[in-house]
């Protein structure tokens, strides 16, 4: 089992084995990332098309109600599942886990490769639904039956079938990848890399992966059963129905059961994309403010707590669904309790900035942007989790604004920050900073312009998933002007992403050479002998770890960072324990 010498590790030589059928986690990570960004662009275009209709209703004749609902559905599903989940776990997870824990690769490289190809298959099946008769499903990303499989919904023949099949395939891919990530973290850490020395990025991805392994089965179950109801005529979720004047043969099923199963997956899914973002942003903030992360233990604890608690809050999506009303008390309470560890994370990020040495590099800009948007999203979550406040707000634009802030924009900002941060390791080149800043400012300010006012449309009572708002007396005409403004902002943000794509491609070939550790970071991925890291990552000798990941600005050291594999004495290693004990005394003397 042990890795004895470099030769034993056959380096792939042909183009095909190196870049296509590659089993190298770094190549697979790039494949995942490119694919996810590509579908993400589709979802972005769809969102801009929706915005065109909402901002300038009826002006674009080709966006009829059918198309609008198809766009909403595909946009939501792609963003949540095929972009964010795939990019965080398959992209960042694949690249960073082995490098950050000092492994040579994932534990099961073949499985890792399969995971990518199966993911790609899922994406292709989903995209195929644009080309089948009736088009993709327009059931909303929640796919609630009975509506999702009945003729009043666009794409209720082929679209919904392809959507469900694609999801099932995706789950298989995610499970293959997930097994790999979990076992790699548990088994393949290099010498000295204890769990409590791991960077928070790895912690975030690790816990998110475990959650994915526990939550996706629930989606699988609801997906399979819905597929059976659609194709084989079973009645798992379908009660007796008169649809469009016709009595159907279904009877006795429970639509609410689907919602329970869906949200048992759906809520943890929010954290499956949030926890990696939490982890990554912690490392970005620490590195770029040259200071150890505030309260590392608390941060790990909070990640684990949030992960665990997020399995007992799902029905806050169902306060007005008609489920047993007494559940409301329980789920409102658990939901608000989860706010405590979440708030602790926010405090610790901002406290890390205190007395630090902030370098406002592009990754850091995105990290700060994340704190600000996540803050809004988290706080508006308290409205929706607090059951009685949710009652008037449920299914309005307040919800749309909330979840875009908390799980749309915020994780996306972290993804951008992470890409700018790790791009030099992947390619050996830096991304263009001016373009990066332009990208940041437009995206960050645009986000506020789009979503901040949207909360107020929701409070007014404008329902979501509306194709048009003709002749509703309670909506003032000014709301339409606001919608036009939001659309313009969304278009600008959309176009600006092209700047990012250009930067990405241009810098890959023309970027300034970065050296091996441009951010002067402590974590292992920056200590590889070659940049980009070669096959097997570490040359002849795997690194040995002597300290935790946050030895920044240690007093008495020549440099303001000490790499994890450096054996010099001193620093907050092993870990802050010693520091914690000393803390009260020193703290008192200072004040």
């Amino acid at each position, binding site marked *: 089992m042990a890795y004895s010498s470099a030769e034993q590790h056959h380096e792939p030589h042909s183009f095909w084995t190196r870049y296509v059928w590659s089993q190298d986690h770094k190549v697979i990570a790039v494949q995942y990332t490119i694919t996810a960004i590509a579908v993400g662009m589709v979802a972005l275009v769809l969102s801009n098309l929706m915005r065109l209709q909402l901002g300038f209703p009826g002006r674009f004749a080709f966006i009829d109600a059918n198309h609008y609902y198809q766009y909403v559905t595909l946009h939501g599903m792609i963003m949540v599942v095929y972009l964010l989940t795939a990019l965080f776990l398959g992209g960042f997870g694949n690249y960073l886990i082995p490098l950050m824990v000092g492994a040579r690769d994932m534990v099961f490289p073949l499985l890792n490769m399969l995971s990518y190809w199966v993911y790609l298959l899922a994406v292709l099946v989903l995209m195929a639904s644009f080309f089948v008769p009736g088009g993709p499903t327009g059931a909303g990303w929640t796919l609630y039956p009975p509506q999702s499989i009945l003729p009043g919904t666009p794409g209720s023949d082929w679209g919904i079938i392809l959507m469900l099949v694609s999801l099932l395939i995706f789950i298989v891919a995610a499970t293959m990848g997930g097994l790999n990530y979990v076992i790699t973290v548990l088994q393949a850490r290099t010498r000295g890399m204890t769990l409590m020395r791991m960077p928070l990025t790895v912690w975030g991805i690790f816990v998110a992966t475990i959650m994915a392994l526990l939550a996706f089965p629930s989606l699988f179950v609801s997906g399979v059963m819905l597929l059976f109801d659609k194709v084989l005529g079973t009645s798992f979720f379908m009660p007796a129905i008169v649809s469009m004047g016709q009595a159907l043969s279904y009877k006795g099923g429970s639509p609410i059961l689907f919602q329970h199963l869906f949200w048992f997956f759906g809520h943890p899914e929010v954290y499956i994309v949030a926890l990696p973002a939490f982890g990554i942003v912690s490392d970005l903030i620490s590195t770029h403010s040259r200071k150890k992360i505030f309260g590392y233990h608390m941060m790990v604890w909070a990640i684990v707590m949030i992960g665990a608690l997020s399995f007992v809050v799902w029905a806050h999506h169902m306060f007005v669904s008609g489920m047993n009303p007494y559940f409301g008390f329980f789920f409102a309470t658990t939901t608000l309790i989860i706010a405590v560890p979440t708030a602790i994370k926010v405090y610790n990020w901002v406290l890390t900035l205190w007395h630090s040495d902030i370098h406002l590099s592009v990754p850091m800009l995105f990290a700060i942007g994340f704190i600000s948007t996540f803050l809004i999203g988290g706080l508006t979550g308290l409205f929706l989790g607090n059951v*009685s406040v949710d*009652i008037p707000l449920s299914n309005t634009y307040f919800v749309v604004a909330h979840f875009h802030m908390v799980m749309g924009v915020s994780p996306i900002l972290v993804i951008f920050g992470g890409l700018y941060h790790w791009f030099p390791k992947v390619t050996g080149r830096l991304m263009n900073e001016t373009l990066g800043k332009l990208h940041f400012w437009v995206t960050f300010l645009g986000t506020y312009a789009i979503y901040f006012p949207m909360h107020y449309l929701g409070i007014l009572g404008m329902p979501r998933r509306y194709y048009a708002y003709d002749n*509703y007396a309670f909506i003032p005409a000014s709301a339409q002007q606001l919608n036009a403004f939001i659309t313009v902002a969304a278009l600008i943000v959309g176009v600006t992403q092209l700047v990012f794509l250009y930067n990405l491609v241009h810098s890959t070939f023309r970027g300034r050479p970065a050296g091996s550790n441009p951010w002067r970071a402590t974590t292992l991925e920056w200590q590889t002998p070659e940049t980009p890291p070669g096959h097997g990552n570490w040359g002849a000798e795997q690194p040995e770890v002597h300290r935790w990941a946050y030895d920044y600005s240690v007093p008495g050291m020549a440099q303001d960072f000490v790499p994890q594999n450096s054996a010099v004495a001193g620093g907050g290693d092993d870990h802050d324990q010693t520091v914690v004990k000393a803390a009260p005394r020193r703290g008192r003397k200072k004040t």
Partner: protein
Amino acid sequence: MALAIVLMALVAAAVLFHFLSPWWLTPLASNWGQIDTTLMITLAITGAFFIAINLFIAYCLIRFRQRDGHRAAHDPENKKLEGWLTGLTAVGIIAMLAPGLFVYAAYIDPPADSLVFEAVGQQWQWRFRFPGRDGRLGVTDSRFVSAENPLGLAPNDPRGQDDVLILNSEVHLPVGKPIKVLLRSQDVLHDFYVPPFRARMNLVPGMVTHFWFTPTRTGRFEILCAQLCGVGHFNMRGYVVVEEPAAFQAWLGRQSTFAHGATRTPVAATGAALPAQGKLLAQSRGCVACHSDDGSARVGPSWKGLYGKTETLADGSTVQVDPAYIAESIRTPNAKIVHGYPAIMPPFSLSDPELAALIAYMKTLSDKTVAQAGTP
């Protein structure tokens, strides 16, 4: 530096926006002022956190920005601070949750003396039912649903005979009396949402859900569907007219009961002009959910300028819109599908006089005529 200023500006803009925004809660029209209060408490607490944390970040960005020769402090851990912050957060959470749960307890506990009525949803229209003199609603089942019995009442349940059926999308309610709304759907999920009432609930096929409220203001309010229910979702409208109890009783008295043929729309009886009857029919049968009268796009083709026009069908052939074509399109909608529209219109069995009324109405929406009129 720029980022610090922007963050401060964002906070200022957010606060300004909040106070200047013309978009805010609709004026309350029910007893659920407590929901608004809880919302305001939540807003105040979260707003304070929003401002404080953003300003703190801005301060750090200015105070601790990179300067030459400056190094970050190697602060020790500070459990005490973490403890305080956790405690403060917990207090804030409890201050929001406690009133929230208190209001919710009232929300799920309808008063015993509530007036009961039923709202029935169907793609994409609303209908209503009140219990008759016996104060009880009759049994329903989807098996009984037909064009003649659209709400699916059991034909031989005695309790149902005197039920008052409202087969159009406007319902009246008395002001000042607690009302328990029973919700039933015949096809998919819907949601009964009247923003000024604050209260709402989903309609779930296969079961009866409910919620309650007391209207406190007279007026005409819009009912929206707020749970995606297919392409016509955004157009599934209804109206609640809240009026003085006497006016309400009078209105209720004018409606017909199940036993007295409420379902047969009294076209001939009303004596109104034929086009006006057709317009009423279009509203009560829910045609307007999918067909506009002003040329605006909905699920189905607009009726404006339809009569006499030449339509292109899905198979490429063309047909002139004459009475025969209209009759066929209503009674067997899938026989000919207009190009560009989904085949989702349900068949309606209308009587000949009803059909004539609808066609008369459509004629008024078009300036074209049909050369040799086919017979409907």
